[in-house]
Protein backbone atom coordinates (compact mmCIF):
# COMPACT_ATOMS: atom_id res chain seq x y z
CA UNK A 1 0.00 0.00 0.00
CA UNK A 2 1.40 3.41 -0.99
CA UNK A 3 1.20 6.13 1.62
CA UNK A 4 2.67 9.49 2.49
CA UNK A 5 6.00 9.20 4.32
CA UNK A 6 5.65 9.68 8.06
CA UNK A 7 1.98 8.68 8.17
CA UNK A 8 0.72 5.56 9.90
CA UNK A 9 -1.67 2.93 8.59
CA UNK A 10 -4.78 2.19 10.70
CA UNK A 11 -3.33 -1.18 11.77
CA UNK A 12 -0.07 0.49 12.84
CA UNK A 13 -2.01 3.00 14.94
CA UNK A 14 -3.96 0.12 16.50
CA UNK A 15 -0.74 -1.74 17.33
CA UNK A 16 0.83 1.34 18.92
CA UNK A 17 -2.33 2.11 20.92
CA UNK A 18 -2.51 -1.51 22.07
CA UNK A 19 1.18 -1.37 23.06
CA UNK A 20 0.60 1.77 25.14
CA UNK A 21 -2.47 0.20 26.80
CA UNK A 22 -0.57 -2.97 27.63
CA UNK A 23 2.24 -0.92 29.10
CA UNK A 24 -0.09 1.05 31.35
CA UNK A 25 -1.30 -2.32 32.64
CA UNK A 26 2.30 -3.29 33.47
CA UNK A 27 3.30 -5.23 30.34
CA UNK A 28 6.24 -3.29 28.91
CA UNK A 29 6.77 -5.98 26.30
CA UNK A 30 4.19 -7.86 24.25
CA UNK A 31 4.13 -10.74 21.78
CA UNK A 32 2.21 -11.00 18.52
CA UNK A 33 -0.83 -12.87 19.81
CA UNK A 34 -1.14 -10.55 22.85
CA UNK A 35 -1.31 -7.47 20.65
CA UNK A 36 -3.80 -9.15 18.27
CA UNK A 37 -6.02 -9.99 21.23
CA UNK A 38 -5.69 -6.48 22.66
CA UNK A 39 -6.67 -4.92 19.33
CA UNK A 40 -9.67 -7.24 19.08
CA UNK A 41 -10.87 -6.25 22.55
CA UNK A 42 -10.18 -2.53 22.11
CA UNK A 43 -11.98 -2.34 18.80
CA UNK A 44 -14.67 -4.81 19.78
CA UNK A 45 -13.85 -6.72 16.63
CA UNK A 46 -15.24 -10.16 15.79
CA UNK A 47 -11.92 -11.53 14.53
CA UNK A 48 -8.26 -11.40 15.48
CA UNK A 49 -5.78 -9.70 13.11
CA UNK A 50 -4.59 -12.21 10.50
CA UNK A 51 -1.15 -13.74 10.98
CA UNK A 52 0.36 -12.41 7.75
CA UNK A 53 -1.01 -8.90 8.18
CA UNK A 54 0.05 -8.66 11.82
CA UNK A 55 3.62 -9.94 11.52
CA UNK A 56 4.30 -8.01 8.34
CA UNK A 57 3.17 -4.82 10.09
CA UNK A 58 5.27 -5.59 13.18
CA UNK A 59 8.37 -6.15 11.04
CA UNK A 60 7.74 -2.97 9.05
CA UNK A 61 7.26 -0.95 12.25
CA UNK A 62 10.44 -2.35 13.75
CA UNK A 63 12.36 -1.39 10.61
CA UNK A 64 10.90 2.12 10.88
CA UNK A 65 12.08 2.37 14.50
CA UNK A 66 8.56 2.51 15.99
CA UNK A 67 9.00 -0.78 17.82
CA UNK A 68 11.94 -2.87 18.96
CA UNK A 69 12.04 -6.58 19.60
CA UNK A 70 14.04 -9.33 21.27
CA UNK A 71 13.70 -13.06 21.54
CA UNK A 72 12.66 -14.31 24.95
CA UNK A 73 15.14 -16.23 27.11
CA UNK A 74 14.81 -19.89 25.99
CA UNK A 75 14.93 -21.06 29.60
CA UNK A 76 11.81 -19.08 30.49
CA UNK A 77 9.93 -20.62 27.57
CA UNK A 78 11.22 -24.10 28.42
CA UNK A 79 10.15 -23.71 32.05
CA UNK A 80 6.63 -22.82 30.93
CA UNK A 81 6.70 -25.61 28.29
CA UNK A 82 5.80 -23.40 25.37
CA UNK A 83 7.55 -21.99 22.25
CA UNK A 84 9.81 -18.97 22.62
CA UNK A 85 8.10 -15.62 22.18
CA UNK A 86 9.38 -12.65 20.25
CA UNK A 87 8.81 -9.72 22.56
CA UNK A 88 8.13 -6.25 21.18
CA UNK A 89 8.14 -2.88 22.92
CA UNK A 90 7.20 0.58 21.76
CA UNK A 91 10.05 3.07 21.25
CA UNK A 92 10.15 6.82 21.84
CA UNK A 93 9.74 7.34 18.11
CA UNK A 94 6.68 5.06 18.17
CA UNK A 95 5.13 7.14 20.95
CA UNK A 96 5.82 10.34 19.04
CA UNK A 97 4.30 8.91 15.86
CA UNK A 98 1.21 7.85 17.81
CA UNK A 99 0.87 11.33 19.34
CA UNK A 100 1.10 12.92 15.87
CA UNK A 101 -1.48 10.46 14.47
CA UNK A 102 -3.84 11.23 17.37
CA UNK A 103 -3.42 14.99 16.81
CA UNK A 104 -4.17 14.59 13.10
CA UNK A 105 -7.26 12.55 13.92
CA UNK A 106 -8.49 15.20 16.36
CA UNK A 107 -7.87 18.10 13.97
CA UNK A 108 -11.05 19.44 12.34
CA UNK A 109 -11.49 18.52 8.67
CA UNK A 110 -11.42 21.68 6.53
CA UNK A 111 -13.47 21.31 3.38
CA UNK A 112 -12.94 23.80 0.52
CA UNK A 113 -15.98 25.97 -0.07
CA UNK A 114 -17.88 25.16 -3.16
CA UNK A 115 -18.54 27.63 -5.95
CA UNK A 116 -15.41 29.76 -5.51
CA UNK A 117 -13.89 28.70 -8.79
CA UNK A 118 -17.09 29.00 -10.73
CA UNK A 119 -17.14 31.99 -13.06
Amino acid sequence: MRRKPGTLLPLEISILEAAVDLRTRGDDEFHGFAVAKEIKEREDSRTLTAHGTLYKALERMERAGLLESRWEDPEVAAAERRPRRRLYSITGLGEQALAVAAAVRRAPVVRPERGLAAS
Partner: protein
Amino acid sequence: MSSIDLAVGLTRAWVRVYTRGLPAEERTARRAELDADLWEHAHDAGNESRRQVRIALEVVERLVAGMPADISWRREAKRGWRARVEQGSRSMLSMTKKHGMIALTGALGLWYLFIAVTAPLSGDDWTGGTREMLTFGLVCGIAAILVFTGLVRLRKSKRWARTMLGIGAVMGAVFTFWIVVPVVAALAILIWLLVTRERRTPAHA
Protein backbone atom coordinates in the same frame (compact mmCIF):
# COMPACT_ATOMS: atom_id res chain seq x y z
CA MET B 1 -6.50 -35.39 16.00
CA SER B 2 -8.53 -32.44 17.29
CA SER B 3 -9.84 -29.64 15.11
CA ILE B 4 -7.33 -27.22 16.69
CA ASP B 5 -4.44 -29.54 15.88
CA LEU B 6 -5.68 -29.69 12.30
CA ALA B 7 -5.89 -25.88 12.00
CA VAL B 8 -2.46 -25.45 13.60
CA GLY B 9 -0.98 -28.10 11.28
CA LEU B 10 -2.49 -26.38 8.26
CA THR B 11 -1.07 -23.00 9.30
CA ARG B 12 2.36 -24.48 9.95
CA ALA B 13 2.33 -26.15 6.53
CA TRP B 14 1.48 -22.83 4.88
CA VAL B 15 4.28 -21.05 6.81
CA ARG B 16 6.72 -23.72 5.61
CA VAL B 17 5.56 -23.18 2.02
CA TYR B 18 5.92 -19.41 1.90
CA THR B 19 9.20 -19.29 3.83
CA ARG B 20 10.84 -21.94 1.64
CA GLY B 21 13.96 -20.70 -0.17
CA LEU B 22 14.38 -17.64 2.05
CA PRO B 23 17.58 -17.01 4.03
CA ALA B 24 17.75 -19.26 7.10
CA GLU B 25 17.62 -16.37 9.55
CA GLU B 26 14.36 -14.93 8.20
CA ARG B 27 12.84 -18.37 7.64
CA THR B 28 13.47 -19.66 11.17
CA ALA B 29 12.44 -16.35 12.78
CA ARG B 30 9.09 -16.29 10.96
CA ARG B 31 8.40 -19.98 11.68
CA ALA B 32 9.27 -19.60 15.37
CA GLU B 33 7.14 -16.47 15.72
CA LEU B 34 4.13 -18.16 14.12
CA ASP B 35 4.64 -21.28 16.25
CA ALA B 36 4.50 -19.13 19.38
CA ASP B 37 1.39 -17.32 18.12
CA LEU B 38 -0.41 -20.60 17.37
CA TRP B 39 0.48 -21.98 20.77
CA GLU B 40 -0.77 -18.83 22.52
CA HIS B 41 -3.98 -18.92 20.50
CA ALA B 42 -4.65 -22.57 21.30
CA HIS B 43 -3.84 -22.14 25.01
CA ASP B 44 -5.42 -18.73 25.56
CA ALA B 45 -7.28 -18.44 28.90
CA GLY B 46 -10.22 -16.84 27.14
CA ASN B 47 -10.81 -20.07 25.25
CA GLU B 48 -11.89 -22.11 28.27
CA SER B 49 -15.57 -21.59 27.79
CA ARG B 50 -15.47 -21.88 24.00
CA ARG B 51 -15.80 -24.86 21.74
CA GLN B 52 -12.64 -26.19 20.13
CA VAL B 53 -14.16 -26.06 16.64
CA ARG B 54 -14.71 -22.33 17.01
CA ILE B 55 -11.07 -21.71 18.00
CA ALA B 56 -9.91 -23.86 15.08
CA LEU B 57 -12.08 -21.84 12.71
CA GLU B 58 -10.56 -18.65 14.11
CA VAL B 59 -7.04 -19.96 13.40
CA VAL B 60 -8.01 -20.89 9.83
CA GLU B 61 -9.66 -17.51 9.35
CA ARG B 62 -6.47 -15.73 10.44
CA LEU B 63 -4.47 -17.96 8.14
CA VAL B 64 -6.60 -17.32 5.05
CA ALA B 65 -7.01 -13.58 5.64
CA GLY B 66 -3.25 -13.17 6.04
CA MET B 67 -2.23 -15.09 2.92
CA PRO B 68 -1.92 -12.05 0.60
CA ALA B 69 0.27 -10.30 3.21
CA ASP B 70 2.36 -13.47 3.58
CA ILE B 71 2.96 -13.63 -0.16
CA SER B 72 3.88 -9.95 -0.36
CA TRP B 73 6.18 -10.33 2.69
CA ARG B 74 7.92 -13.24 0.97
CA ARG B 75 8.38 -11.18 -2.20
CA GLU B 76 9.88 -8.28 -0.22
CA ALA B 77 12.13 -10.57 1.84
CA LYS B 78 13.41 -12.27 -1.29
CA ARG B 79 14.00 -8.95 -3.06
CA GLY B 80 15.94 -7.61 -0.07
CA TRP B 81 18.00 -10.77 0.15
CA ARG B 82 18.83 -10.70 -3.58
CA ALA B 83 19.86 -7.05 -3.34
CA ARG B 84 22.16 -7.88 -0.41
CA VAL B 85 23.72 -10.81 -2.32
CA GLU B 86 24.23 -8.72 -5.49
CA GLN B 87 25.78 -5.87 -3.51
CA GLY B 88 28.10 -8.32 -1.77
CA SER B 89 29.28 -9.94 -5.01
CA ARG B 90 29.73 -6.53 -6.67
CA SER B 91 31.93 -5.27 -3.86
CA MET B 92 33.86 -8.57 -3.87
CA LEU B 93 34.50 -8.26 -7.60
CA SER B 94 35.69 -4.67 -7.25
CA MET B 95 37.97 -5.70 -4.35
CA THR B 96 39.45 -8.52 -6.47
CA LYS B 97 40.05 -6.08 -9.34
CA LYS B 98 41.66 -3.59 -6.97
CA HIS B 99 43.97 -6.19 -5.45
CA GLY B 100 44.86 -7.48 -8.93
CA MET B 101 45.79 -4.00 -10.13
CA ILE B 102 47.84 -3.33 -7.00
CA ALA B 103 49.73 -6.60 -7.57
CA LEU B 104 50.30 -5.67 -11.24
CA THR B 105 51.57 -2.21 -10.24
CA GLY B 106 53.91 -3.79 -7.69
CA ALA B 107 55.25 -6.18 -10.35
CA LEU B 108 55.80 -3.26 -12.74
CA GLY B 109 57.64 -1.33 -10.03
CA LEU B 110 59.89 -4.35 -9.42
CA TRP B 111 60.57 -4.59 -13.15
CA TYR B 112 61.62 -0.93 -13.31
CA LEU B 113 63.79 -1.45 -10.24
CA PHE B 114 65.41 -4.46 -11.89
CA ILE B 115 66.21 -2.38 -14.98
CA ALA B 116 67.46 0.51 -12.84
CA VAL B 117 69.96 -1.83 -11.15
CA THR B 118 71.02 -3.94 -14.15
CA ALA B 119 71.23 -1.28 -16.89
CA PRO B 120 74.24 0.65 -15.47
CA LEU B 121 75.98 -2.67 -14.69
CA SER B 122 75.57 -3.93 -18.25
CA GLY B 123 77.75 -1.03 -19.49
CA ASP B 124 77.48 -0.59 -23.25
CA ASP B 125 76.27 -4.16 -23.92
CA TRP B 126 72.93 -2.71 -24.94
CA THR B 127 72.39 -0.15 -27.64
CA GLY B 128 73.83 2.96 -26.02
CA GLY B 129 77.08 3.81 -24.30
CA THR B 130 77.73 3.73 -20.53
CA ARG B 131 76.43 7.28 -20.02
CA GLU B 132 73.19 6.48 -21.83
CA MET B 133 72.78 3.32 -19.80
CA LEU B 134 73.26 5.30 -16.58
CA THR B 135 70.58 7.79 -17.65
CA PHE B 136 68.33 4.91 -18.65
CA GLY B 137 68.84 3.24 -15.28
CA LEU B 138 68.25 6.53 -13.44
CA VAL B 139 64.93 7.14 -15.25
CA CYS B 140 63.75 3.57 -14.52
CA GLY B 141 64.86 4.02 -10.89
CA ILE B 142 62.80 7.21 -10.59
CA ALA B 143 59.85 5.40 -12.20
CA ALA B 144 60.22 2.56 -9.66
CA ILE B 145 60.41 5.04 -6.75
CA LEU B 146 57.28 6.85 -8.00
CA VAL B 147 55.39 3.55 -8.37
CA PHE B 148 56.36 2.25 -4.92
CA THR B 149 55.75 5.59 -3.18
CA GLY B 150 52.37 5.75 -4.92
CA LEU B 151 51.51 2.24 -3.69
CA VAL B 152 52.57 3.02 -0.13
CA ARG B 153 50.66 6.33 -0.05
CA LEU B 154 47.54 4.91 -1.73
CA ARG B 155 45.64 4.58 1.55
CA LYS B 156 46.50 8.01 2.93
CA SER B 157 46.59 10.54 0.12
CA LYS B 158 44.72 8.98 -2.76
CA ARG B 159 45.05 11.78 -5.28
CA TRP B 160 48.79 12.25 -4.92
CA ALA B 161 49.40 8.52 -4.77
CA ARG B 162 47.42 7.92 -7.96
CA THR B 163 49.26 10.73 -9.74
CA MET B 164 52.61 9.24 -8.71
CA LEU B 165 51.51 5.78 -9.82
CA GLY B 166 50.36 7.07 -13.20
CA ILE B 167 53.50 9.12 -13.86
CA GLY B 168 55.80 6.31 -12.69
CA ALA B 169 54.06 3.62 -14.77
CA VAL B 170 54.01 5.73 -17.94
CA MET B 171 57.55 7.05 -17.48
CA GLY B 172 59.02 3.56 -17.21
CA ALA B 173 56.90 2.29 -20.11
CA VAL B 174 58.08 5.12 -22.40
CA PHE B 175 61.71 4.27 -21.70
CA THR B 176 61.16 0.53 -22.19
CA PHE B 177 58.70 0.84 -25.09
CA TRP B 178 60.20 -2.10 -27.01
CA ILE B 179 59.25 -4.58 -24.23
CA VAL B 180 55.55 -5.32 -24.73
CA VAL B 181 54.50 -6.80 -21.36
CA PRO B 182 55.42 -3.83 -19.09
CA VAL B 183 53.97 -1.39 -21.63
CA VAL B 184 50.63 -3.28 -21.64
CA ALA B 185 50.74 -3.45 -17.83
CA ALA B 186 51.39 0.30 -17.59
CA LEU B 187 48.51 0.98 -19.98
CA ALA B 188 46.19 -1.27 -17.93
CA ILE B 189 47.20 0.57 -14.74
CA LEU B 190 46.65 3.94 -16.41
CA ILE B 191 43.16 2.89 -17.58
CA TRP B 192 42.34 1.56 -14.09
CA LEU B 193 43.48 4.85 -12.52
CA LEU B 194 41.35 6.85 -14.95
CA VAL B 195 38.25 4.65 -14.60
CA THR B 196 38.33 4.52 -10.80
CA ARG B 197 39.21 8.16 -10.20
CA GLU B 198 37.04 10.01 -7.70
CA ARG B 199 34.67 12.43 -9.29
CA ARG B 200 34.51 15.84 -7.69
CA THR B 201 31.12 16.80 -6.34
CA PRO B 202 29.87 20.04 -7.89
CA ALA B 203 30.22 23.02 -5.61
CA HIS B 204 26.99 24.40 -4.23
CA ALA B 205 25.93 27.71 -5.67
